[in-house]
């Protein structure tokens, strides 16, 4: 089959990725992320009224009781109400609030959940998250450099960093809440995108060895064409289940599903363009993947 000249459009891809990253970074530095309770600390209370709840009267009750800075929104249905108290309220004040709401309304109020996160825990989680992300990127780079070659490792890490930044940018732009599950999703995106990139890199390496008398750019085009079917099918099945999760999984898992939906989409693109373009710009050649020992040693060497 004829290879599709993917790399002919790489300048478009570079421009596109560049634009996406610049937008993401700009948005992250200008309006940052809508940090969830896990990272900011504070109190979150979800209650269910037996009938549709009157948000303005809840707000006035809370204002009377001296809960300054309380944010009252409806959550999912008009009967579910979410109250967020900023950091600084004690855990007892949160629990007391439910009693106050009960006595102010003649409707039955059911407590769905209370989450209280102290400020020190929030800071720690944020630091740990950052460290985990960097450790993941570092270890992956080492592994790929060891199993493939340093140019491939750089390509993979560029692709991963690209996905993480663009997904973060998406959360910053849309103002979706960034909580602990979204952080977990982001690490899962790293894992997924990596999976994709490795499959493509693996094929490029194989073809560099196999196809003689071909420019690197042609080898990459051939490899991308060969893996395109697999890349699309896997992304499609993953996106299918993620869509199911986003639509039916409920509010608590929505952010997680959205982060993965965005991340997997970006990851599919990046494994094709970002990693390969990096390889091309770094001037990958046959010499980089030559097997030093006898022919076929790579096969045995790859098995654990």
């Amino acid at each position, binding site marked *: 089959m004829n290879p599709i000249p993917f790399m002919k459009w790489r300048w478009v891809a570079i421009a596109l990725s560049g634009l996406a990253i610049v937008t993401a970074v700009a948005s992250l530095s200008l309006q940052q992320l809508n940090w969830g309770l896990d990272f900011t600390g504070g109190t979150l209370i979800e209650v269910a009224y037996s009938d549709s709840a009157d948000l303005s009267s809840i707000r006035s009750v809370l204002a009377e009781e001296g809960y300054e800075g309380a944010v009252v929104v409806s959550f999912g249905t008009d009967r579910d109400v979410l109250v967020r108290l900023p950091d600084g309220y004690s855990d007892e004040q949160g*629990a007391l609030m439910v009693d106050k709401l009960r006595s102010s309304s003649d409707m039955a109020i059911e407590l769905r959940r209370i989450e*209280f996160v102290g400020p020190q825990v929030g800071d720690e989680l944020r630091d740990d998250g950052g460290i*985990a992300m960097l450790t993941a990127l570092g270890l992956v780079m080492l592994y790929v450099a060891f199993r493939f070659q340093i140019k491939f490792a750089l390509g993979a890490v560029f692709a991963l960093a690209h996905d993480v930044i663009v997904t973060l940018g998406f959360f910053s732009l849309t103002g979706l809440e960034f909580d602990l599950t979204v*952080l977990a999703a982001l690490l899962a995106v790293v894992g997924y995108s990596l999976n994709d990139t*490795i499959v493509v890199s693996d094929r490029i390496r194989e073809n560099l060895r196999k196809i003689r008398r071909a420019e690197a750019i042609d080898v990459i085009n051939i490899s991308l064409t060969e893996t395109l079917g697999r890349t699309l099918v896997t992304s499609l099945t993953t996106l299918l289940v993620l869509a199911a999760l986003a639509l039916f999984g409920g509010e608590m898992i929505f952010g997680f599903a959205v982060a993965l939906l965005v991340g997997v989409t970006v990851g599919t693109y990046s494994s094709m363009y970002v990693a390969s373009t990096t390889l091309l710009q770094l001037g990958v050649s046959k010499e980089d993947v030559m097997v030093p020992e006898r022919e076929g040693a790579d096969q045995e060497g790859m098995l*654990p």
Partner: protein
Amino acid sequence: MLILIVVAGGFFYAAPNLYAPDPALQIAGASSSQMIDRPILGRAEQALTDAGIPFFGEVIQEQGKSALLRLTDRDQQLRAQAVVARELGDGFIVALNLAPTTPDWLLQGGATPMKLGLDLSGGVHFKLEVDVAAATERRLEQYEIGIKKRLREERVRGRVSLDGQRAVMQFRAEADREAARKLVAELYPELFLDRVDETDAWLLYADVTEQTITELVDYAVTQNLTTIRNRVNELGVSEPLVQRQGRNRIVVELPGIQDTAEAKRILGKVANLEFRLVAEANAPISERQRFEYRSAGREGMTEWLERDVIISGESVSNAQAGFDQNSQPNVSISLDGEGGMLMSRATRANVKRRMGVLFIERKYRTRYEMTESGEEVAKRIPYDEKKLLTAPVIQSALGAQFQITGLDNPGESSELALMLRAGALAAPITFVEERTVGPSLGAENIRLGTKSVQVGLALVVIFMMLYYRVFGVAAVLALSGNLVLLVAIMSLLGATLTLPGIAGIVLTVGMAVDANVLIFARIREEIRGGAPPQTAIGQGFDRAVVTILDANITTLIVAIILYAIGTGPVKGFAVTLSVGIITSMLSSIIGTRALVNLFYGGRRVQALSIGGVGGAKVARQGAAE
């Protein structure tokens, strides 16, 4: 063959998760000596029958320590609890529970269902932090007091003060300092001593080493852990979890608890010990109180104590069982600086009198009240039950460190030390995180999670069948086997299922297809390259395996990092993801291959039903790809 065994094993260990648990009531005695026997269970049964609540499977467990009653209707669980609690009265704890319905033949093979996380079962999750700084400060005070006392006893003249993490001793003569150095080294070998000469003074610094502080923190945390365990038991929760996390955190999980305010009050209570003098016989009644002994051997015996409290448990920093010079069992008690001062002030003038140690437990009395609408509501009224642990004679003026002697045997001394430690908090604790999930939200999360798994799985199955035909069937079968194995391994590991964990399962379903897709793509290529079907299958599998391993090992690295940093629900996600990666590798490399061999093996095959490469389609499909 082996695959069949593995899959059968998978089904066996995954099976318990299919049996929905029964709503149940668990009855236990409020104190450990209260046994549950047939007549008591009979009263509970009668009460339920009278109230018209159907039940079954009543059984006495743990050699009479508790009993279980299963209910047919989940909605009646709360009402049943109220009815039984009313009938049995305050001597018993009636807790809501979910009783597993795993059949015996599964249980005998060691198969048990997965535990549900709090976000699915409902309940409270607390994270407590032990105030390490306060514990360290307290220890330093103890050093200061101890050194001062020792120097005074040995008539070494010098000044002792605290300066940050060290004790500073100042002497007029070098001989004094040398004497002090020997004494301190003997008394506290863990301190690091350093001599510094100044123009008009000889100084001795005693530094607390990092190792000592680590040990101290460990001690304070384990101590608090024990205390909190005891207090959790007061709450009467069916399956509580109390666990240390990291250096100075304690995680408490209480499934099914609704009244978080009360739970927090009990857990956060500072201390529950009181030291009081035994009242003199002629003391006016308004100044004394009568208390019963706590131990079973002295039942009914009482003692009159003064109303004034010398110190309470928060001043007690340690209590250890040991032996004195005559190898008689004793308990050594350490107090903090303030406690030591109060103790010495109170005992100096009262040598030869006796001092009582009270242990305080929070208990409940239930009262039933009629509301305006004529409904009867149960009101739990908490009260403190104070009982006497011991009342030894004061032999001399006591300080920050003293011993209780005259105990009958080592068993008694270790029991007393345990109770003293349980009543003291080695260091103050604060709540740094709290997550409460109501039972309705938990049930909803289960429903939503199950639905998204079903929908996701259905979509993938349809897609694979349409796209890969017969090979798609093989992949779907392998995928189902993969799911069964995943659930089986999670059950075997005793992993807890959380909402993000369910998301992990869903994600695994999506990604597990990948390995199959890789293999099938390779086989298609081999066919296009002109290889005969059987060779194409063999080559396709062999060449894809390398790629699959590389791709999955890197993903596994990420999942392990996620496990290392994650807490609670996120850890659940990391576990499902890791297990999912491993089982999906196995199922696609071994499982799919076996199925494909089953379909096509051992015969000459003209064409493979793998979709997209049949005859004229090759060119079109190839171009589209």
